[in-house]
């Protein structure tokens, strides 16, 4: 296994970020006070899982060094700060708290002065930290009659609602994204939480002005509904500020994407996908997010100029299609060290609609609508697949000079499962090696990490004719 032996500076860097994370957590606890903290740890037991962040940090940086290691640690540190801000929202701003489905634009809620909480967020974060922690929530949902074949993310989210794991909110906002399971889950969540709920509708065929007008209208209606059911009021100037800052983030991200086209890639894996997943979906338009992308760009630039490969001995470049393997999040790290695979980009990050036209309220809503409709998962689960699913895959393979496609074949993602047959044929015709990993997003009982490793190993050795580096 090629473990680039981290030098002293790498150890120091790891410990620096460990200390920063601990310091931030301690500061939050101290500010909240021991009694309140004790009460909230009982009320929200999942906070204990969040405290495992430094264990995740250690797993993610293992074998990595230099600017790549620093970038991964920095991104995770930023996530910790973001989580703390969300927790403080629960602690101190519950009078403005709303729950919203994960693909709806937080920019709007922030501009309205509301404190957003994404119910799916814990289902995404917690399995990365403690791989089997969602099982109790999955089981709770199944006990209530939710079928086990529903995607485990909405199923776990339902389970969390049933176990009263979410903060009390004023209202709930959801949509028909990204899939039927996700959409339907809010029927149970709203019923369980006994809160007023509003649903936003996204058309199936969205690449036209008619769809854009319809969806912008939906967002307008959502704002009016929120103004009626919460103390939130839309502040268009504030929305403009947030959107302009988001545009700045998008510019920086595009610069990074340009650089990772280079072979070997100067940056990869969590530095790319986790930064997008968190900062564009949870903290868009934050000054801290701009700073993070500025720093990421600088570190990527340094590697590029010095011709330093993020992944030591990069031999293969992969596209990851679908959300990353949450309960075995160090898969990419393992694949780097075992086969020299660099996961360059993923379907959850890649998009073609990065900017918001901030000239008028309508233009902002339309741009935000466009970003959502044409964003990851929304785009891939609607519209004809010939227009929205396959072109992205083959464009990314070509544009980023990739050697293979890995589909994280989450068994609950029926939209992806149902396209795998055609994708297999198209990849075969195009000469693009394809790996479909059979597993469940957050339930390691379906396929444990060893099972995932075995599938990747078989593919790498039999199809790619790769030799293990260990």
């Amino acid at each position: 296994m090629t473990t680039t032996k981290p030098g002293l500076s790498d150890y120091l860097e790891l410990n620096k970020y460990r200390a920063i994370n601990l310091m931030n957590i301690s500061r939050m606890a101290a500010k909240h006070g021991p009694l309140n903290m004790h009460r909230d740890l009982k009320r929200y037991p999942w906070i204990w899982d969040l405290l495992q962040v430094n264990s995740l940090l250690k797993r993610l940086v293992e074998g990595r060094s230099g600017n790549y290691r620093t970038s991964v640690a920095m991104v995770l540190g930023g996530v910790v700060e973001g989580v703390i801000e969300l927790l403080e929202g629960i602690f101190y701003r519950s009078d403005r708290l709303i729950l919203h489905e994960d693909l709806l634009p937080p920019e709007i809620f922030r501009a309205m002065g509301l404190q957003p909480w994404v119910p799916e967020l814990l289902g995404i974060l917690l399995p990365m930290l403690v791989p089997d922690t969602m099982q109790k929530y999955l089981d709770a949902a199944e006990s209530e009659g939710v079928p086990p074949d529903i995607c485990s993310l909405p199923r776990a989210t339902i389970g969390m609602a049933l176990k009263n794991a979410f903060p009390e909110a004023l209202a709930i906002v959801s949509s028909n994204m990204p899939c039927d399971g996700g959409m339907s889950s809010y029927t149970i969540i709203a019923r369980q939480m006994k809160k007023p709920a509003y649903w936003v509708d996204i058309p199936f065929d969205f690449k036209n002005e008619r769809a854009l007008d319809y969806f912008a209208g939906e967002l307008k209606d959502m704002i009016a509904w929120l103004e009626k059911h919460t103390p939130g009021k839309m502040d268009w100037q504030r929305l403009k500020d947030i959107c302009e800052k988001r545009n700045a983030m998008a510019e920086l991200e595009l610069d990074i994407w340009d650089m990772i086209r280079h072979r070997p890639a100067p940056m990869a894996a969590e530095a790319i996908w986790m930064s997008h997943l968190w900062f564009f979906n949870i903290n868009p338009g934050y000054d801290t997010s701009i700073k993070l992308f500025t720093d990421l760009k600088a570190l990527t630039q340094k590697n590029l100029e010095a011709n330093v490969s993020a992944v030591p001995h990069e031999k293969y470049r992969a596209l990851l299609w679908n959300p990353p393997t949450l309960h075995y999040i160090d898969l990419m790290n393992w694949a780097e060290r075992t086969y020299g695979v660099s996961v360059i980009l993923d379907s959850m990050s890649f998009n073609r609609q990065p900017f918001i036209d901030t000239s008028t309220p309508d233009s902002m809503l339309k741009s935000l609508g466009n970003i959502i409709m044409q964003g990851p998962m929304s785009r891939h689960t609607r519209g004809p697949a010939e227009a929205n699913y396959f072109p992205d895959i083959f464009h990314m393979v070509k544009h980023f000079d990739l050697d293979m496609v890995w589909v994280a074949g989450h068994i609950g993602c029926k939209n992806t499962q149902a396209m795998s047959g055609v994708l297999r044929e198209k990849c075969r015709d195009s000469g693009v090696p394809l790996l479909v990993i059979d597993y469940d997003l957050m339930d390691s009982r379906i396929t444990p990490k060893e099972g995932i490793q075995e599938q990747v190993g078989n593919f790498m050795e039999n199809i790619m004719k790769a030799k293990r580096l260990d």
Partner: protein
Amino acid sequence: MDTDKWFSKLLDEPVNELVQKSMDEGQIPIGYSCSYVPDVMLSVDRLFPVRMRATGIAGTEIADNYLSSVICSYTRSLLEFALDGRYDLLRGWVFAASCDHLRRLYDNLEYLKRPGFSRILDVPHKTGNAAISWYTDELKLFAKALTDNFGVDLSAEALAKAIREHNAFNAILRKIGEYRCGDKPVMTGTQYHRIVVAASASPKKALLPILKKIRDDLPKRDPLPAYRARLLLVGGHLDDPGYIGIIESQGGLVVGDRLCTGSYPGLQPIPETGDPIEALAKHYLTKTSCPRMMEAFRERAEDIVTLARDCRADGVVIQLLKFCDTWGVEAAAFVSFIREAGIPVLRLERDYRLGSEGQLRTRIQAFIESMGK
């Protein structure tokens, strides 16, 4: 004529002899697969709608390769039959983007087997004015596509006439249905479902005389023998009357249904005034009542409770296709809602192809016994 046998025979094939006969007379059959597709628009001029079924499917080995085995077995069965050429007589098909499964079936069919005419309708997930307006526009585009492709007349007059005929036809079906839910039913749920499914899979003109005769003869029939319980059957797509037959073989008479392929809500009349396309958009969007529509859980749940009370059902059986996300999640909420209303409820998952009959019998027996019947 033994009408039961005659209707059974119509259901033996996905494209039956009446369809073939109508084609010989110059009519054009168009397949459709979901209740959000306004079949009235396919009942205009020389067109006639055929609801797509995969009756008698033995396995879905090829379809599983494409759609995988975690997709609803109705859509897998349709793909299997399509690849097997069983719908080759159809001149086209129309799908609705109603659920992930049907959307992906359409995607696969577009790649694997595209007929002369194929279309997927963009159905909103809400029923407000904006959604109705959207669907009206969608249906206008659909009408244009049909006209351009088949040269048929979908003018307002032609559509208004089709709506009137559709309402008249459905009024007969509704009237027949009343004879299964009275105090002394003269018709079983199986017999009724056979007629309703056959009506959706055959040219209506060919069925009309026999349906009128059945309607007129039913008052003269003797009441059915004693049964143990009256049941309301709830769920999405169910086109196999044999499933109801098994329920009724255990003494549970199906006196009412809320099925996509059944009498409610599908047979309700469409308004005959105003712009026909707008009326169709509003009707199909607001009356189809599928869990894929957001914001309307309570209305759907109350609808079931009201139906159960109207037909004096002792209990409700919810059946759903395994892997159906919308029904799968919502059924969990329906169960508690219906129980809270004081009505016993049984939830069953099934495959599209009738199987596990013994298990189904046992579940129904236990359910009926649990109601003290």
